[in-house]
């Protein structure tokens, strides 16, 4: 590796690119050539360095660690002259340290343990040498020279690694099934179709540490005896796709992919396949149908992919996070790995914390940590000093858990017993201002939209569930609705073809179980306790605080508000469409939601 005096990291986050990050890089490159510094200063593209909306385009110059923000290409000549020639920091662009926060992934908090995210934000993802310098591809070397395929499978079994896509099936067992399946041609697939709303853990791994996934896949290929693999990545992640493509190219150039890897007689190569915007393709059989060029519809299992997968051949399919766990397990051993976690769930799990929590973003914690520790210690508690109401784990097919279940340890079994799922790791925190019936309706809307339509319980059942929930939210709830919801949920869960339909009732079942009083208030009293459902609330102007400033009346789109200047105004409830604009524009908090 060449020696450089300085390294400039340039954020090529989508927002920074929009604001001209590439023009910046071009100008910087030209200027460094002009000043004869190009052999001394290295430019690296990286993911976001701070809040790109506020700070982008931004760069960090190492070894000093100076963070320059809000740059444009015409600032560059001066920056090069001052910083690199005269050695002075250009104060006008240098950010204060506290501004430079990666909203998605901050420095590890005290209860976090980073295994999967070990390199994310630390190495340059577009440079394979950075990964190799951090023990990258050492596990592959160990596997190819010291271990038999059976040894590799045993190590993964001993580590008790379970599938991180959500279902938690033992990875080693899956590999063994694929290894034992008859046939010469076998495939390895990486499920990078991370579609759960609010979950972006896999995106950051693909964008920030692509080689850990590639290395994990090569090791899996060696273990089951496969020569060809596919990465199926959703098209909504263009940067992840380009980073992975570049990483594969670099790995190929160094003989880590392709024929005779590391000089052995083992050959394996990878291909990228992009999704086309169908949530159900995250389901493994639908995903494989999509790679084969068909509609992404699931099929019944068995036969499982390990017996009959892609093009009818034995196929091993794991999620991004599962593969990223493989190299550290091989390198540091199953014993080390299984010191983390609970009896049945070993290791760590990444979560994307979102919603009404103070610190949103990506975290990685050992299994067994409680929801309370995640939300209050790591997440910093609820925003705006409001009260906690529920946490939804596992994406749209997960359940909503209330306050009294917060001390449960997070592992596959416990979350399942509590009526939710581990899922891929989305975690949405909701405060007291959230209506749980509305949330159930919202998730059903998503699921109903994404149902592929192949099987009737899911296609028709979710449609009917949604109709009833919409009725309840609109104030048309009636006696018997709750019983019908419960019955439908049971039928859909039992009779649907794939995980999407089987999990579809979870948001309804869990909110019915833990927030029955809210359903009853909607149905029996026609009241929305959280004051969210429009047809069940009304806006009223309070006599005392109203100063008669007329702002509300002037902003009302349907002219429902009347009143003289400096007199208390009145909302005509027959005309009011409950848009809430008056509530937002009132400066005196005179408008109350009832």
């Amino acid at each position, binding site marked *: 590796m060449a020696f450089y005096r300085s390294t400039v990291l340039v954020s090529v986050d989508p927002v920074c690119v929009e604001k001209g990050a590439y023009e910046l890089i071009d100008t910087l490159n030209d200027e460094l050539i002009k000043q004869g510094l190009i052999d001394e200063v290295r430019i690296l593209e990286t993911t976001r360095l701070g809040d790109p909306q506020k700070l982008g385009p931004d760069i960090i110059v190492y070894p000093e660690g100076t963070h320059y923000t809000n740059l444009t290409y015409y600032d560059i000549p001066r920056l090069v002259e001052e910083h690199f020639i005269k050695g002075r920091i250009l104060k006008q662009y240098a950010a204060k340290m506290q501004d430079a926060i990666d909203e998605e992934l901050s420095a590890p908090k005290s209860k976090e343990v980073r295994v999967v995210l070990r390199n994310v934000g630390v190495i340059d993802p577009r440079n394979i040498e950075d990964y190799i310098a951090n023990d990258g591809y050492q596990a592959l070397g160990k596997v190819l020279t010291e271990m038999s395929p059976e040894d590799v499978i045993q190590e993964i079994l001993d580590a008790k690694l379970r599938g991180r896509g959500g279902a938690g099936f033992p990875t080693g067992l899956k590999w063994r099934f694929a290894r034992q399946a008859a046939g010469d041609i076998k495939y390895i697939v990486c499920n990078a179709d991370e579609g759960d709303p609010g979950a972006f853990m896999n995106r950051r791994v693909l964008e920030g540490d692509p080689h850990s996934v590639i290395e994990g896949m090569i090791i899996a290929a060696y273990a089951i005896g496969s020569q060809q693999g596919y990465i199926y990545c959703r098209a909504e992640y263009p940067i992840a796709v380009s980073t992975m493509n570049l990483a594969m190219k670099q790995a190929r150039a160094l003989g880590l992919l392709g024929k005779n890897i590391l000089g052995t007689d083992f050959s394996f190569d990878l291909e990228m396949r992009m999704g*086309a915007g169908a949530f159900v393709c995250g389901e493994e059989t639908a995903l494989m149908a999509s790679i084969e060029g068909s509609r992404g519809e699931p099929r019944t299992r068995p036969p499982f992919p390990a017996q009959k997968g892609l093009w009818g051949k034995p196929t091993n399919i794991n999620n991004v996070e599962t593969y990223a766990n493989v190299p550290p397990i091989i390198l540091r051993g199953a014993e080390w790995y299984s010191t983390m976690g609970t009896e049945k769930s070993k290791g760590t799990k990444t979560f994307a914390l979102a919603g009404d929590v103070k610190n*949103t973003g990506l975290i990685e914690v050992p299994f067994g940590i409680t929801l309370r520790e995640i939300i209050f210690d790591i997440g910093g508690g609820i925003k705006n000093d409001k009260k906690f109401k529920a946490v939804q784990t596992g994406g749209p097919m997960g359940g909503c858990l209330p306050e009294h279940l917060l001390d449960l340890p997070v592992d596959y079994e416990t979350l399942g017993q509590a009526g939710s799922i581990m899922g891929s790791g989305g975690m949405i925190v909701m405060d007291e201002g959230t209506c749980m019936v509305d949330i159930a309706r919202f998730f059903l809307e998503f699921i109903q939209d994404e149902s592929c339509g192949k099987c009737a319980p899911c296609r028709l059942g979710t449609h009917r569930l949604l109709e009833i929930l919409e009725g309840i939210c609109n104030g048309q709830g009636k006696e018997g609705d709750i019983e019908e919801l419960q019955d439908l949920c049971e039928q859909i869960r039992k009779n649907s073809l794939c995980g999407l339909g089987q999990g579809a009732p979870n948001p309804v079942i869990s909110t019915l179980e833990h927030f029955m009083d809210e359903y009853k208030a909607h149905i029996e009293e026609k009241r929305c306790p959280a004051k969210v459902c429009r047809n069940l609330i009304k806006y009223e102007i309070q006599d005392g605080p109203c100063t008669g400033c007329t702002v509300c009346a002037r902003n009302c789109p349907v002219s429902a508000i009347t009143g003289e200047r400096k007199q208390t105004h009145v909302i005509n409830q027959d005309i009011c469409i409950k848009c809430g604009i008056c509530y937002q524009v009132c400066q005196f908090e005179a408008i109350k939601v009832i």
Partner: protein
Amino acid sequence: MAEQKFAENEVVELVTKIVTSIGTTRGDLIPILQKVTNELGYISQEAIQQISVLLKLPTKEITSVATFYRMLSTKPHGRHIVQFCESAPCHIAGGREVFSALKEALNLEPGETSADNKWTFYTTSCLGVCGVGPVILIDTEIHGNVTPDQIPSILGRYE
């Protein structure tokens, strides 16, 4: 986004070029349709005919795949595609108000294209930038932390 109409022979030529660069197996079908959508703006009947000839697949097979995926379109689009993220984190962060403001500003329902062919409006599943919700994607540009009153100025940036 491609707005100009392509003549039939141009479509045939373009599709042939795309198929040659990708391949003619069944597994190549979706990458081909993605490329056609990107270059033609949508998958026209002529394009389906030509793919059918080159891949030796019935046109109904191709249509069935092309209509299954959200990102493949068999209908022409407007010059700009506005996509609103309808996922839970954006919903909780005030997405509902942004959605109504956007619908009103565009005067379109999801799936519609404006009469002047400027806008096509869609809702989209999670874009994975939940830290800055609510999020709108216009063509390939992401706008985050959007509030209802920013909508006119955001839309105003597009010709």
